[in-house]
């Protein structure tokens, strides 16, 4: 059931068994796992069913470290949270990501990957990931594009599965269940302001909630789960400072520290020996079975150990010879967009807006060739002057002519199918696991939002290990590509400790309430429970002690399912 919290009478106290704060990927997964169980569950969502400016304003914060996305853009306050702009990329973490690596300070999860494995499989279903297969060999063997044949075994291909666009939004996927499950109540426009504890400070007793309309109420629960986001979770703990002046769970000054992203940057170029080298596997595409996948080049775990660096992943993007730009541009043309719109609509048995315009575009495009055909010929015959022009053109010009002759759809279809125009070079974008860094952190700033709560300050900081890992990854790519005769690599990233302004993250907010068995090194334990607080848990990527290079969603959903199982046992 959905309830507009703005209509709850002032100062009322609601009673429930489990109170979940946040209805994003983690919060909705938890609610889904609790649906139909013999326990009352309340979910407090700050926003409504859709994005609104007032709720978004509450996410505004200050970036005082490395340039980062505006904090109200990086996160979404509405049902579904950031799954509303999720790219759908999924891949489990690697075994090595969970290990304590002496060369990576503060590394090591209190879990092994094997402990999370069964939850990964359940998370796959929750996230609408089609296949249970993750090995690159499986995917490469079923793809129309080959993997690059690197010289040794230092580099490997990793495959992301990509959830289809229409299936990514948790708000749509689970709305019916959230609405219909008798034991679930989703309170919209309900902003947690702080959590109160009992006198000894060891048990959370109630959540104080405020609406932007001014209404305030309380929620009493047996268990509380923070599932805001990687910045919202530490903020709410720091704001809960009535009995704990430093904030809940912050007795060792760990809350908000270790903010991690997946630093991402164009770092170089691979100029292939053979301009027809296929890098189709490394672009987002559908494979022969229709699954959306995308490959990356990564260093093997053995090499990461040997080199003593962080996990490095390299994306390879083709940059085509400018002579073929006409065909590449066809992919973005209005006529191809119209065809896509029609196909999408037909698949869902609907008629798109502007149907007639789209149909006209497609028909005109597909009959472009008739403008260059001999009139009234019994079979389609090109005009002699056209044949002559094509004949005399150099190969690249010939391609441009073909676009002119056949419109946009035919070359775009060719391009989509074969991804095989001559390459000028391949742009290498490196994405790394960021090293856990206590100085990279979220704190409360002096400015306050409309609810009177301190806005956050993000100080995103990187280390020399981050830089060294990026550079070393490229050097190994260069050696492997040269040794295999694939081509030569140029590194465009400087080797000093500075970072270019173009460096960004992957919209992944991690590490700020990290998991550790030792309360001095983390905020939550292996069960995602706050150290020294008997009934407060955290869900989401803020509990990741290290970030791997895999997109975080699948792992955070796995952890949420695991937490749900734990609490179901506990409340049984």
């Amino acid at each position, binding site marked *: 059931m959905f309830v507009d919290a703005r209509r709850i009478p002032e100062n009322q106290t609601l009673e429930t068994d489990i109170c979940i704060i946040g209805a994003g990927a983690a919060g909705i997964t938890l609610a889904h796992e609790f649906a139909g169980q013999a326990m009352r569950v309340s979910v407090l969502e700050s926003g409504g069913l859709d994005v609104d400016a007032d709720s978004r304003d509450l996410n505004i914060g200050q970036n005082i470290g490395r340039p980062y996305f505006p904090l109200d853009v990086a996160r979404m306050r509405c049902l579904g949270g950031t799954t509303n702009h999720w790219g759908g990329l999924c891949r489990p973490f690697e075994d090595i990501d969970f290990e304590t690596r002496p060369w990576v300070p503060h590394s090591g999860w209190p879990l092994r990957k094997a402990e999370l494995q069964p939850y990964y499989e359940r998370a796959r279903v929750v996230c609408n990931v089609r296949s249970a297969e993750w090995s690159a060999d499986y995917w490469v063997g079923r793809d129309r594009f080959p993997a690059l044949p690197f*010289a040794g075994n230092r580099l490997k291909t990793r495959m992301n599965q990509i959830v289809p666009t229409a299936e990514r939004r948790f708000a749509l996927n689970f709305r019916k269940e959230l609405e219909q499950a008798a034991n679930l109540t989703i309170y919209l426009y309900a902003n947690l302001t702080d959590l109160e504890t009992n006198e000894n400070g060891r048990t959370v007793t109630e959540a104080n909630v405020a609406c932007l309309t001014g209404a305030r109420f309380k929620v009493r629960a047996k268990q509380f789960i923070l599932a805001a986001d990687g910045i919202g979770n530490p903020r709410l703990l720091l704001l809960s400072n009535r009995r704990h002046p430093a904030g809940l769970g912050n007795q060792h000054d760990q809350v908000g520290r270790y903010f991690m992203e997946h630093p991402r940057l164009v770092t170089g170029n691979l100029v292939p020996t053979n301009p027809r080298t296929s890098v189709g596997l490394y672009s987002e595409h559908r494979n022969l079975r229709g699954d959306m996948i995308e490959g990356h080049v990564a260093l093997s775990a053995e090499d990461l150990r040997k080199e003593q660096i962080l996990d490095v992943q390299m994306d390879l993007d083709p*940059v085509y*010879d*400018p002579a073929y730009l006409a065909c590449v541009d066809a992919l973005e043309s209005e006529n191809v967009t119209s065809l896509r719109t029609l196909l999408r609509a037909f698949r869902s048995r609907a008629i798109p807006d502007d149907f007639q315009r789209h149909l006209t575009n497609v028909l005109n495009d597909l009959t472009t060739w008739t403008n260059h055909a001999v009139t009234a010929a019994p079979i389609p015959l090109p005009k002699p002057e056209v044949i002559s022009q094509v004949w005399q053109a150099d190969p690249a010009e010939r391609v441009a002519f073909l676009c002119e002759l056949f419109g946009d759809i035919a070359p775009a279809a060719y391009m989509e199918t074969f991804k095989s125009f001559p390459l*000028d070079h391949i742009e290498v974008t490196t994405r790394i696991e960021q090293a856990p860094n206590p100085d990279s952190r979220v704190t409360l700033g002096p400015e306050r939002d409309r609810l009177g709560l301190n806005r956050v300050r993000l100080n995103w900081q990187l280390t020399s290990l981050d830089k060294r890992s990026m550079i070393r990854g490229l050097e190994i790519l260069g*050696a492997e*590509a*040269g*040794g295999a005769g694939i081509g*030569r690599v140029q590194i465009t990233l400087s080797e000093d400790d500075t970072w270019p302004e173009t460096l960004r993250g992957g919209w992944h907010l991690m590490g700020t309430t990290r998991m550790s068995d030792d309360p001095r090194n983390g905020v939550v334990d292996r069960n995602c429970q706050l150290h020294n607080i008997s009934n407060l848990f955290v869900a989401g990527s803020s509990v990741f002690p290290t970030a791997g290079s895999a997109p975080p969603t699948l792992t955070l959903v796995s952890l949420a399912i695991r937490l749900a199982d734990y609490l179901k046992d506990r409340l049984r």
Partner: protein
Amino acid sequence: MRSASAMSRRKFLLLGGGIGGSLLATPGLTWLGSIWQDQEKTLHSRLTTLFHHQQSARMIGRTYLQRYPQEGNIQVLLEKVVAEASGIPSDSSFNTPPSSADRLRRAGDRELMDVLQRRIRQDFVEEKVVKLQGWILSATEARLCALRALA
């Protein structure tokens, strides 16, 4: 998928003679350039005509020599190239150091190219590489460019 930049990197490197240009024009250093059959030619002159894009090779060579001025001598460079090439385990006859240079000199085009290509690949495998203006090049190919620059 990305569209191309305003100007082809490949072409820019070739036309501008920038670093790596010659390597790009000679895929995998296939040494398409004419290798002198004339047995009277010195090994040095044979090696310096390997490149398809001489200007680019010279530029790479100059950059290499700026970085490693101690190798700014034809004899030193030749010795290093020959020594490395003779280290290649192969079915060719270049693996006896004292006479390596002679044998390289007497080798036919195909054999010479084969040895150099394999040496260059082996350089990468063994990470005997140099970084010149960001390009990761085999030490052997960089030295060959340096020989060209000194020619």
